[in-house]
C-alpha cells in the first residue's frame, strides 16, 4: 500500500486553476521532487495534503486514512511534516521551545522523552548550538534548519519540503541536501518542491513536473528534466500560458 495517494485532486481559486485531476502515489521511504513554474500549484498541492486548503474534488489518502475530514493538527500527528517556503518559527520563543512544542504536540511525547526528541532534531539539523536563542533572531539558513527540525521533532513519516534550498548559498544548499539525504536513508519519505534543481537531482529518485495545476511529467528525474514538455515550459512556448495564470 502506498504511503500517500492522491486521486483526481482538483482545486481552483476563482478562475485560477491550481489543481487539475492530480493523481499520484508515493511509497514509504520514497523521495520525490516537484518542479514547475511559479503559479503551477506546487505549494497549493502541499496545502491540500497538510490540510491548509480543501480540494474541490478528489481524494487524498495517507497510510490508509482518508484525509478529507482530518484537521491540520490531526494530519501532523499522523506523521505529515511540512516546511514553509518562508520559514515560520515561533519568533518569540527559543529555538529549543520551537522544537519541544513539535515533539510534544506532533509526536505526542512527554517529559524527558520530549526533551531528548527536541534536542535530537535540533542536532540533526545543526542548530542545537542555538537552542537557547530566540528563534526570531536567527538568520535565514538557521531558520530553514529550524523549520526542518520542527518537522522532524514530530517524528514524521513524510516530509513536505517547500523550497527549503531557496535563497541559500551553494555551500548551505549542499549542507541542507546532505541532511535531507540522511533523513531519507532513515526511511522518511520526502516530497520536495524546489527550484534549485541541482539539489533535487542529487536526492530524489523520481520527479514530477506541474504546470497549471496538472502533472505534465512524472518519472526518472533526468528524463523528466530532458523531456520536451518540461523544456518548453521552462524555455518558452507554454510560459506565456503560465504567465496568464
Amino acid at each position, binding site marked *: 500500500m502506498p504511503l500517500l495517494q492522491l486521486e483526481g485532486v482538483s482545486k481552483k481559486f476563482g478562475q485560477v486553476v491550481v489543481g487539475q485531476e492530480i493523481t499520484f502515489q508515493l511509497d514509504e521511504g520514497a523521495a520525490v521532487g516537484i518542479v514547475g513554474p511559479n503559479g503551477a500549484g506546487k505549494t497549493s498541492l502541499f496545502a491540500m495534503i497538510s490540510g491548509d486548503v480543501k480540494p474541490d474534488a478528489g481524494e487524498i489518502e495517507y497510510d490508509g486514512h482518508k484525509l478529507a475530514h482530518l*484537521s491540520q493538527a490531526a494530519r*501532523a*500527528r499522523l506523521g505529515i511534516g511540512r516546511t514553509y517556503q518562508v520559514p515560520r518559527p*515561533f519568533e*518569540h520563543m527559543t529555538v529549543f521551545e520551537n522544537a519541544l*512544542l513539535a515533539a*510534544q504536540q506532533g509526536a505526542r511525547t512527554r517529559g524527558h522523552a520530549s526533551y531528548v526528541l527536541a534536542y535530537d532534531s535540533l542536532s540533526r539539523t545543526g542548530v542545537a548550538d542555538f537552542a537557547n536563542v530566540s528563534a526570531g533572531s536567527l538568520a535565514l539558513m538557521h531558520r530553514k534548519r529550524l523549520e526542518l527540525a520542527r518537522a522532524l521533532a514530530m517524528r514524521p513519516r513524510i516530509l513536505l519540503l517547500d523550497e527549503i534550498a531557496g535563497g541559500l548559498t551553494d555551500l548551505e544548499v549542499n549542507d541542507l541536501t546532505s541532511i535531507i539525504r540522511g533523513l531519507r536513508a532513515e526511511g522518511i519519505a520526502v516530497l520536495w518542491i524546489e527550484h534549485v534543481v541541482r539539489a533535487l537531482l542529487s536526492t530524489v529518485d523520481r520527479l514530477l513536473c506541474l504546470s497549471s495545476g496538472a502533472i505534465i511529467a512524472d518519472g526518472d528525474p533526468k528524463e523528466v528534466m530532458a523531456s520536451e514538455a518540461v523544456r518548453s515550459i521552462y524555455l518558452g512556448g507554454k510560459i506565456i500560458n503560465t504567465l496568464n495564470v
Partner: protein
Amino acid sequence: MIWLNVVIQGVLVGGFYALFACGLSLMFGVMRVINLAHGDMAVVAAYVAVFLTPHAHIPEVWAFVVVAPLFGVVGYVVQRTLIQKSIDRDPFTTLLVTFGLSVIIENLLLEIYSSNGQIVNVGELIVKSWHPQSIIYISYVSLAVLAAAVAVLGLLQVFLSKSGTGRLIRAVADDHEAAQLSGTNYRHIFGIAGAIAFATVALAGISYGMMTEFAPTSGGVNLLFAFETVVIGGIGSLWGTLVGGIALGIAQQFGAHINPEYQVLAGNILFLVVLAVRPEGLFGKRTALA
C-alpha cells in the same frame, strides 16, 4: 504629602484597571480579538456575585471563588463557539459579534435587575482603611484589589513562560497556523486563553462591585479605561498592563486633584501622548505575548 496621597490613590485604582484590562490584553494578544463585551462580562460577574451566590450560601465577599471558575467555563464555551466562528469568517466580524453581545447583555441586565445601582457587599470592610499619615488613607478593599491584580498578572506570567500549556498559548499567539502544523489544535488553545480571560474579568467585575456601585451600563466606561491601560502598557505585555493601569490611575488622580472634572480628561491625555510618542506602548513588543 498631598501629592504622595494622589500617587498612592492612583496606584490603588491602577491596580484595578490592570486587573480589568488583563483579559482584554490576553484575548487580543492571543486571538487578535477585541472583545467589546469585555466590560459587560465584568458587570455580569458582579451581578452573579450579588444575586446568585447568596443562594449557594456563599458570602458575597467570597463569590469570586465560585464565579471566576464558572466564568472560565463560560469563556471556553463562548470562545469555541461564538468567537471562533466569527474569527473563521473574518477578523472584523469579531468586532460586530462582541458589540452585539455587549448590547444584548446590557439590555438583559436592565430587564432583569433594572437600572438601580448595586454593590457587592463586603460588610464593614468597605469603610476600613489603613491610615499611616494624617491625610493618607489606604482602603483595605482597594489594597486587596491591587494585591489581586499583582498576583493574577504574576501567576499568569509564570504560567505562560513556564508551563507546557503556557508555551502552547505563546505559540498560537505567534502563529496559529504554524502551531497547527506542529500538531497543535489551536482552537482548543484559543479556548483555554478565552477561559483565562473570562476568569480574570470575573475577578475584575466583582472587585469593581466591591469598590463602587455598579449598574447594567457600567461596562462601557470600564472598557474604555481597560483599552487605555492596554495601549499605554503595550499590547500583549502583562507587566506592561500593570504599569499601564497604574500610569492611567495616577494621571486620573492628578487630574481629579486639580479639578474633579479633569479626572477622565487627564487619563485620556496620557493615553493620547503615549499613542503619539510610543504607539507600541511602554512595554509593547509590537507583536505576540511577552
